[in-house]
């Protein structure tokens, strides 16, 4: 069990981080579909900076900044110019994917051995890490893990428990109503998209910084798209996302475990399990899988059609 948790936690970190970033902007109505690209860019930037500066924290922070920049472009294009969110998002996805590869190639170039960085070190929380079963996997972790835990709780607190969160959520539910009460719709959308996109990039940076120590093209391998699925699965709510991410990561690890143990089933079918299971869960998820009413639609104060 402890081993299982240890294996699950890293992928949980990735999924949670990226999905929290996604729902953050989603709750204000910005439907971000750039994840696959922004995570790749985050991985590339995170690695390149960590390698050149010799600082993993630097890599994470700059990755955040670059992701935030993509978020800024997305939000300017959609809130100021009111271009379609989905189309702009896809365009940015292409651009970010291209930029990720270009950056690595320009800075690192062709090398015989891929340059490698030291991955994040684990920190131990005294006492707690001695708890049987969960102590080792949950309390001996790198700081990104602890950050994600705090972030998730913080987001929950902010969205569900504070007045600011009440105002914040209303932007995605009925922007016109929010606007008419003096809530700055564009501001909320802008900052949530910038921060959210930054978080997505950090999730990408976690790949070289935690898993591999190197950057490779295509290392996100479609997980960015899964993040979008996860946001829906989690009903765009922080704590549900935490659970959903655990489900995704858990199924992933279980699939591998099944192969290692050897079930006599072709391994491809075992690898399908997480996706099939998610689809099955979604069949029953309509109870909680509600999405913000104005997810994906732009707000134009003076338009009579919108809202």
């Amino acid at each position, binding site marked *: 069990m402890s081993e299982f948790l240890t294996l699950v936690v890293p992928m949980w970190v990735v999924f949670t981080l990226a999905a929290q970033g996604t729902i953050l902007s989603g709750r204000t109505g910005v439907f971000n579909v750039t994840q696959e690209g922004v995570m790749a860019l985050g991985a590339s930037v995170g690695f390149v900076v960590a390698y050149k500066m010799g600082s993993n924290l630097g890599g994470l922070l700059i990755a955040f900044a670059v992701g935030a920049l993509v978020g800024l472009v997305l939000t300017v*294009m959609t809130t100021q110019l009111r271009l379609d969110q989905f189309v*702009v998002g896809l365009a940015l996805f292409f651009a970010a*994917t*291209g930029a990720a590869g270009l950056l690595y190639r320009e800075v690192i170039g062709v090398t015989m051995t891929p340059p490698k960085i030291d991955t994040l070190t684990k920190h131990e929380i005294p006492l707690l890490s001695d708890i049987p079963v969960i102590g080792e996997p949950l309390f001996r972790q790198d700081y990104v893990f602890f950050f994600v835990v705090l972030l998730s709780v913080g987001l929950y607190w902010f969205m569900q428990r504070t007045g600011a969160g009440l105002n914040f959520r209303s932007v995605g539910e009925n922007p016109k109503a929010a606007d008419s009460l003096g809530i700055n719709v564009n501001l909320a959308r802008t900052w949530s998209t910038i921060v959210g996109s930054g978080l997505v990039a950090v999730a990408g940076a976690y790949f070289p910084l935690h898993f591999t120590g190197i950057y490779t093209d295509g290392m996100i391998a*479609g997980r960015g798209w899964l993040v979008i699925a996860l946001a829906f699965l989690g009903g765009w709510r922080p704590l549900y996302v935490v659970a959903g991410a655990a489900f995704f990561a858990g199924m992933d690890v279980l699939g591998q475990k099944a192969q290692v143990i050897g079930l006599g089933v*072709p391994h*491809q079918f075992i690898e399908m399990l997480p996706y099939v299971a998610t*689809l099955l869960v979604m069949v029953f998820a*309509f109870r909680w899988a509600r999405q913000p009413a104005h997810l994906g639609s732009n707000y134009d104060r003076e338009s009579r059609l919108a809202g």
Partner: protein
Amino acid sequence: MSTVEQTPPTPGSGGPPSAPAPRGHGSGAVTGVAWTVLPYVASVVLAFLVGGLLIQAMGYSAVDALEAVLTSSFDSRFGMVETLHKWVPIVLCAYAFAIPLATGKFNIGAEGQLLLGATGGAAIGITFSDLPAVLLLPAMLVAGVLAGALWAGIAAVLLVRFRVNEVLSTVLLNFVSFRLIDWVATSVWPDAGAGHPATTPVGDGARLPLIGEAPGLHSGVLLVLALAVFIAVGMRFTPTGFEMRAVGDNPRASLINGVKTSRLAGAGLVIGGGAAGLAGAIDVAGVQGRMLEGMQSNFLILGIIVGLMARGSMLALPFIAFGIAVLEFGAGTMQLVASVPVEMVLVIEALILLFLLLSDIVRNRLRGAA
């Protein structure tokens, strides 16, 4: 954002994301066409300008690179054949995206549908490899269409019956399909010598006839050309095509006026899946001669780009797809002659798309000022 009771609301508002192609202001068809084409031309020019600057800044020759991108499709028979062979899956995957989009649904699953179509086609082509072409070829193309449609049908059922968001289901089904075809290519009909997950070759009767001397153009291109006309007419002039656009515009108003909206939304996905499945089957019959892993290439993304650029016009779509096929083929040459990384083309495509969006704003300003 309007929603139908039967189906969950889709992100990206009720309607297709982009405004429909601009109408000529009653000032004749010529200006109408000009208004439609102009933004595309301007966007492409701007994208190349910005892309060229980037290439130059990275220390390559922008002139060589862009020349390669633009001319390589046209300066040899081979280039044209390759471009058209790429055009087929791009245009079909664009339909796979654009047809469901007409009803307001986002099909992100063309990859999986294409792979299943290829598998279905290959299954027939391998199992009945001795049949003559008159029987085998149509059978395998039909099998491809059905397999793709069936795969999209899963998402359609999940959507219509269980209200599972189609973005989510089609994305997930892509991942499932990768595993499924890997199994088919390595365990069901594996080709031991292929060095790659690939099925054994399909029978000779399952190969599309080639036109002209080698490298020949496969006749699937003509088939798709005919299909393009059929779809353009169908969407504009048939009641079902009209209903699809109506549902995309306002599902509730359509429902109230007798359109079976959720069934239609499901049908849109299934038809789109069929188109992608056909792309797979044609690729097997015309190009690869077998189903192999990776044959979906980046057609999903290209199909989405094209589908979005077409802004609901099934007439414009094949032309845009051709433009993108030229870019994609040119990208390889660009790498060859100017050593510019292929990623550059992704960036240029993104730029075209963004400039195209921005052209809407410019046009609206112009219209407002007029």
